[in-house]
């Protein structure tokens, strides 16, 4: 068990290392002078030369990479070109809205999707099952920003039930905070719900066909414990896996959702950096989000052993 965790940790570090190499090479192998790219469109030759010197761009690539990697590991993601502030500090200032959005979406979406999927499998062919098919087809086809603007138009502009956009820090009270997260979470969560509910349904259908479920029914186990304790627990592995893989959807979606709903989070930070060509910010946010994805999937792998003691590596 310990050996497995150690091996899994090692491969996580390896994958992050490869992500680092990609992100580093992206800047250095893309056509054009990295210093000129970083300096932006209006830079003077002196500024470009200054940047080249400051970043040590005259050194061989491996040396540059090692220096950069050591700094990143120590939490130094570089300096923003536009604001001249450390990237890590800018991310820190913007992390609360992003975490709030991602976590509320995750909790609501997983609860909804698993319930939906379990009910659809239990009553396969019923209206619940068919409406799940509709939701999942729509969830995969309607883009986050289109859902977002539709929600804003209906619930904020026409019905005036909820604020149009923006963010209120949790420190200023739970009410305003959650009020502004309802619509963004629905928009962001739709595709995620579709994905998880569909896999839950499939996994549950497989398990519900097992002999031990028939035995449980025969000996008079009530429906709810039968579904949850006997079936859902055994259908857990694929569901947990897809929750982990789907985090990629959430991460990509956060960037778009924050733009639609004007939420000042990490996603907005990166979108604002596009037009200013503030590459250190883009680089830092990619590393952060990839790290989150890799760590979430590491945790997913480790929960397998808890969910299914038969899994031994």
């Amino acid at each position, binding site marked *: 068990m310990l050996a497995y965790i150690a091996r899994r940790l090692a491969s996580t570090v390896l*994958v992050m290392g*490869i*992500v680092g190499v990609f992100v580093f090479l992206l800047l250095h192998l893309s056509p054009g002078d990295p210093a000129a790219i970083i300096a932006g469109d209006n830079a003077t030759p002196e500024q470009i030369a200054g940047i080249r010197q400051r970043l040590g761009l005259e050194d061989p690539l491996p040396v540059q990479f090692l220096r950069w990697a050591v700094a990143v590991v120590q939490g130094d993601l570089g300096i923003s070109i536009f604001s001249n502030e450390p990237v890590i500090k800018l991310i820190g200032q913007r992390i609360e809205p992003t975490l709030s959005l991602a976590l509320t979406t995750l909790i609501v979406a997983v609860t909804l999707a698993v319930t939906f999927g379990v009910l659809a499998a239990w009553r396969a062919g019923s209206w619940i099952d068919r409406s799940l098919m509709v939701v999942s*087809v*729509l969830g995969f*086809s309607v883009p986050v920003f289109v859902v977002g603007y539709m929600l804003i138009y209906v619930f904020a502009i026409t019905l005036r039930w909820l604020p149009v956009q923006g963010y209120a820090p949790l420190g200023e009270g739970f009410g305003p905070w959650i009020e502004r997260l309802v619509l963004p979470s629905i928009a962001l969560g739709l595709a995620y719900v579709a994905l998880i509910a569909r896999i839950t349904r499939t996994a549950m259908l497989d398990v519900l066909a097992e002999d031990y479920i028939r035995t449980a029914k025969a000996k008079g186990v009530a429906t709810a414990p039968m579904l949850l304790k006997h079936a859902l627990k055994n259908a857990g592995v694929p569901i947990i896996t897809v929750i982990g893989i789907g985090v990629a959807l959430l991460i990509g979606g956060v960037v778009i959702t924050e733009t639609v709903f004007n939420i000042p989070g990490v996603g907005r930070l990166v979108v604002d950096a596009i037009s200013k060509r503030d590459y250190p910010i883009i680089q830092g946010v990619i590393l952060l989000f990839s790290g989150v994805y890799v760590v979430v999937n590491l945790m997913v792998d480790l929960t397998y052993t808890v969910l299914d003691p038969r899994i031994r590596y």
Partner: protein
Amino acid sequence: MATATAGAFVAAEAPSRRRGARLRRFIRRNPTLFAGGAILSLVALVALVAPLIAGDPLTMQPAQRLRPPSEANWLGTDNLGRDVFSRTVYGARVSLFVGLSVASFSVVVGLFIGLLTGYFRRVDAVAMRLMDGLMAIPAILLAIALVALTRASVMTVIVAITIPEVPRVVRLVRSVVLSVREAPYVEAAIAGGTPVWKILFRHILPNTVPPLIVQATYICASAILIEAALSFLGAGTPPEIPTWGNMIAQSRLFLSRAPWTIFAPGIALAVVVLAVNLLGDGLRDRLDPRLARRM
């Protein structure tokens, strides 16, 4: 010669009724495949003949700005007085072009890498770790970085969307190769001294085609979505090109005054992606029954 003519005559006489019945049966058995294919063909046709059916998508008429849908402007006008219907029709061109290009490029590149990694064990470990790393980077962010580093153009966008899609194809192809390379007929070919390239292309590659066609449609759908998202975020096609993502981005501030400026391209986008996904589901059910049962 005479028999051929007679045959053609019989075929022509056997009324098109039989062909109609066959088509009806095909539709009944593959409703999603047909629905997706029909919608897509219609959109593709509209995109092809755009200049014939849609007016000028670029001319600005500030006097006519934010007009609601009318007889002159079927879907209204945007904040610069441009015709939303024409822009939506022209937007289909970019979306379909990007979707098809990304699907074909990523399939070609992924197929090549996948065949090699699946067949040569030494390449495998290294290549798959590289793919794991690439897959850990969120596709939208990778594309944002690539577009930010180079000049925005349709070609940059296609490359930027293709790169994160490649690992998915590689994994698929590799899994097929791994399962096929132990098959008796491949071992027989190896024993018979068949050159490696011939084993790969003649004996192994055909097995990857059905799942690849299915995968390619899903990649096409996801590419259309990512292109729209990138344009929406300002990291995609240059703003002067009428694409659905650009249209929505430029109309953001006018949602309450002129919702049609956002919903026309938004609904077009959703319908096209839906059609590609339906086509993919239909193809999957026909070509890959093993996978179809799982979903």
